[in-house]
């Protein structure tokens, strides 16, 4: 597989007949988790609740029940559309998608086929995280709002299936990309970026394990630059890794079929993560005729200027803007990219800056020290016991020479363990760095005397030994000596 960083070389599959290009489009279903109530019924939507405990009369499609749009869901869809830099349609409409299945109580899903709430937009992905000039625009065709269906449980009874309607009527945003991606890595980057944007906006928690976000992956292959090939759609893929695997696997499968003289059937496929294969679910011929038509129970959705203004005003700073701002503060593109990838990290880092930390130093520290510690401890940034304010204090102690970088690592470890403030740790444990030339000179003299042979070698030209003397002095002073002063004094004595 061609790596992410390989931005310059396009992803190609090499078959017997030469190179093939893969074309990918994603339809992402994102649950509107910002509100805990359903799209048209107001019922609750808690994940993992007892089956059929989150079901209203509307969700169960009892006779005479009517849908009423949940304004907060509409608001979140509009905010998301704005964050995707997309056209917001002042007037949109709900349509019914008709089909029979036991998880669909009304026999139709309320969706938006003809007039979606959000029109074209775009998302920028970075093909190389270290290079802010490696951006690529992925087009968004539309975003529409629709209901989720319930769930069948086949393992509860030997001959029957049970129906759980907890998810019936849950609000989803379907975000349809243009077929603008050309590799598994691009598909992965797009999905990660989309997820980040949703999480920044707060409309969807992006939790793919709990099903609040899943993707239908459209894949086709063609000779580079040629006509678009026939695509397949692999449904309900629920992780970034799986999406990438589907693109990879499906593209290779299609190349094999085509080179074997076959044709690609336009069909719906399912991904089996255990075997890492996709399987045909149904062909175009078996496709439902959904008989879409405008839902007569619902009026067209008209959005007024005041509502749009409020939505716009409520948007937070989005990942790209934040990344650019961080870079403007002198933070490296890589660090800026890492710091803005997850909204919690970005928020934490902003709080760190607000607490007075110097941006470059802070960025390096977060990416190296904090992330390292979190990884080790298996924690996420939201449950670290160290607050941004305490971290800022720690960094300030380093910056003003109170402690050395080495001591800072120790202090940080103690902070993680005890939750104590860094200044307290430094004071109580006597970790303050010393610049006292008298004490340092005395220590240097002892070291030099004990290593007369090495001093001789140094003076004979083995300059590399300078580091050894520094190390010995620092060790003897338990790391508390100011390294600058140690350097200066050593040079004065040796040179």
């Amino acid at each position, binding site marked *: 597989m061609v790596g992410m960083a390989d931005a310059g070389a396009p992803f190609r599959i090499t078959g017997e007949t030469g190179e093939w290009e893969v074309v990918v489009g994603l339809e992402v279903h994102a649950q509107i988790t910002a509100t805990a109530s359903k799209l048209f019924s107001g019922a609750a939507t808690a994940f993992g609740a007892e089956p059929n405990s989150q079901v209203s*009369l509307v969700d*169960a*499609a*009892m*006779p*005479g*029940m*009517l*849908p*009423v*749009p949940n304004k907060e869901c509409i608001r979140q869809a509009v905010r998301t559309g704005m964050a995707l830099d997309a056209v917001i349609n002042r007037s949109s409409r709900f349509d*019914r998608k*008709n089909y*029979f*299945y*036991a998880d669909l*109580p*009304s*026999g*139709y899903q309320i969706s938006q086929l003809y007039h979606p709430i959000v029109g074209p937009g775009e998302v920028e992905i970075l093909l190389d995280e270290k290079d802010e000039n490696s951006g690529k625009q992925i087009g968004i065709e539309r975003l529409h709002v629709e209901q989720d269906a319930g769930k069948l449980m086949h393992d509860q009874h030997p001959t029957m*299936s049970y*129906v759980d309607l907890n998810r019936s009527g849950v609000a989803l945003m379907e975000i349809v990309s243009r077929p603008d991606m050309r590799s598994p890595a691009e598909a992965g980057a797009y999905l990660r970026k989309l997820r980040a944007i949703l999480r920044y906006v707060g409309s969807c928690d992006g939790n793919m394990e709990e099903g609040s976000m899943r993707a239908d992956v459209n894949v086709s292959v063609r000779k580079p630059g040629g006509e678009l090939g026939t695509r397949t759609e692999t449904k309900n893929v629920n992780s970034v890794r799986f999406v990438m695997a589907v693109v990879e696997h499906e593209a290779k499968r299609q190349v094999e079929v085509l080179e074997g003289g076959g044709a690609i059937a336009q069909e719906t496929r399912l991904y089996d993560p255990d075997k890492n294969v996709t399987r045909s679910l149904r062909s175009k011929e078996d496709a439902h*005729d959904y*008989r*879409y*038509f405008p839902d*007569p*129970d*619902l*009026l067209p959705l008209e959005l007024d200027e005041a509502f749009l203004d409020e939505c716009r005003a409520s948007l937070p700073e989005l990942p790209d803007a934040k990344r650019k701002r961080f870079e403007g503060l002198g933070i490296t593109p890589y660090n800026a990219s890492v710091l803005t990838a997850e909204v919690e990290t970005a928020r934490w880092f902003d709080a760190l800056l607000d607490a007075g930390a110097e941006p470059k130093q802070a960025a390096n520290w977060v990416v190296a020290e904090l992330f390292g510690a979190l990884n080790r401890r298996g924690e996420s940034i939201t449950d670290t016991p160290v607050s941004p304010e305490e971290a800022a204090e720690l960094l300030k102690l380093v910056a003003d020479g109170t402690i050395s970088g080495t001591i800072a690592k120790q202090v940080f470890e103690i902070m993680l363990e005890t939750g104590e403030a860094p200044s307290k740790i430094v004071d109580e444990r006597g970790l303050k760095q010393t610049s006292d030339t008298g004490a340092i000179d005395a220590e240097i003299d002892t070291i030099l005397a004990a290593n007369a042979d090495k001093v001789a070698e140094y003076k004979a030209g083995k300059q590399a030994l300078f580091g050894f003397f520094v190390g010995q002095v620092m060790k003897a002073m338990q790391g508390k000596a100011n390294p600058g002063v140690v350097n200066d004094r050593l040079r004065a004595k040796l040179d």
Partner: protein
Amino acid sequence: MSELTSKTIAELRDGFRSGEFSAREVAEAYNAAVAGAKLLNAYTVETPEDALAAAEVADKARGQGELPSLAGIPLGIKDLFATKGVATTAGSNILKGFRPPYESTVTANLRKAGAGMLGKLNMDEFAMGSSNETSAYGPVISPWRRKGSNVGLTPGGSSGGSAAAVSAHIAPGATGTDTGGSIRQPAAFAGICGIKPTYGRCSRWGIVAFASSLDQAGPMARSVRDCAMLLEAMAGFDPKDSTSLDLPVPKWEANLSSDLKGKRVGIPREYRIDSVPAEINALWDQGIEWLKDAGATPVEISLPHTKYALPTYYIIAPAEASSNLARYDGVRYGLREEGVKTLDDMYAATRAAGFGEEVKRRVMIGTYVLSAGFYDAYFTKAQRVRALIKQDFAKAFESCDVILTPTAPSAAFGIGETTDPLAMYLNDVFAVPASLAGLPAMSVPGGLDGQGLPLGLHLIGNELDEQIVLNAGLAIEERAGFTARPEKWW
């Protein structure tokens, strides 16, 4: 028939308030009348205890401050309205035994106004029909008979049980629903009044859906005033229905006036159809004279797309119905056919057994017109024609205030006489355009035909102008002096 059951709702209200009789006496009189009229097959469920309970509340409240508008009035409720704990089946086998755990907004409003329930009224299955013959409970027999004949006649449909009950004096008033004439045509057949308000006046919440963009509840009663009273109680904004109108309910009854001075009555030339019996056109002419007498000026108007209304209706209504009725799948409530192997088999068996012929026909038509490849030719085009029909009315109302037409192209026909579905659909030829346009429309009795059967006159008002419809209806009512009643044979 006891004297109490001969009274209008307004008379019952006034007599009860003045202490002439108790609400209990009214309820008992009606309960007895209902129990004695089983031959009509008007009620699918009788709820005498409900009527008595409401009467008891009314009797207790009397003399203790202001009474709600319908205190002590027992009503019949069309089986399309969900009534909490009481079987609600829409006249269909597929919902047999279904007892909703909720009450429709309209019936809840009526209960709030103090009304009790005599029972659930028979109807065409899912309100699809014009004769009540499609009901799973068998047809309602009209209390009316042709002179010198004992042939059973239909009360019209789909609110046939409501019409029969009101005209047979086994309910002083009833709820109906009107999708394409289902209040007005049976009202005309039964010699009573019935009004369909502007679309959105009455909440559809809790009414079993037939065609959502057309369905509207309305009252059926023995006088225009009674209709005004009932409609005031039924109507009102309901946040649970997105298509409900967020407007205050006008004081229709208080503003009733048969003085039509300065009003213009539109007479649409396209409604003059040769095949309609001369008696009906003659009654129409008589209606024009009555309204002139009340001070109105007749003006000829044109509704050029009228001839497309019926085909348009028979695309849109079945399309919506095919989708609305998908929920009757045997999974969660109502009928389920067992002994099948797959889910698809269960659907097919349940729906085959649960739905009657007319419902199946409309589900098939609706499914067809929404299908890929046919959608634009049928559904999209029908929506466009519907818009043109609306425009026709909007234009007409620039030159008139209310429109007068016959309600139906015939008087009541015999049970089993009309077997061709298309001939049956023609019953609603005058009623359907106002439904497509969402306008308020009413049928009031105008007289009897040569066979002694009632004929109705049809009034259509502009959007939200139920008042002019009621006022013109009152003017006709006062002048027609329609006092005919079916002779009791049941």
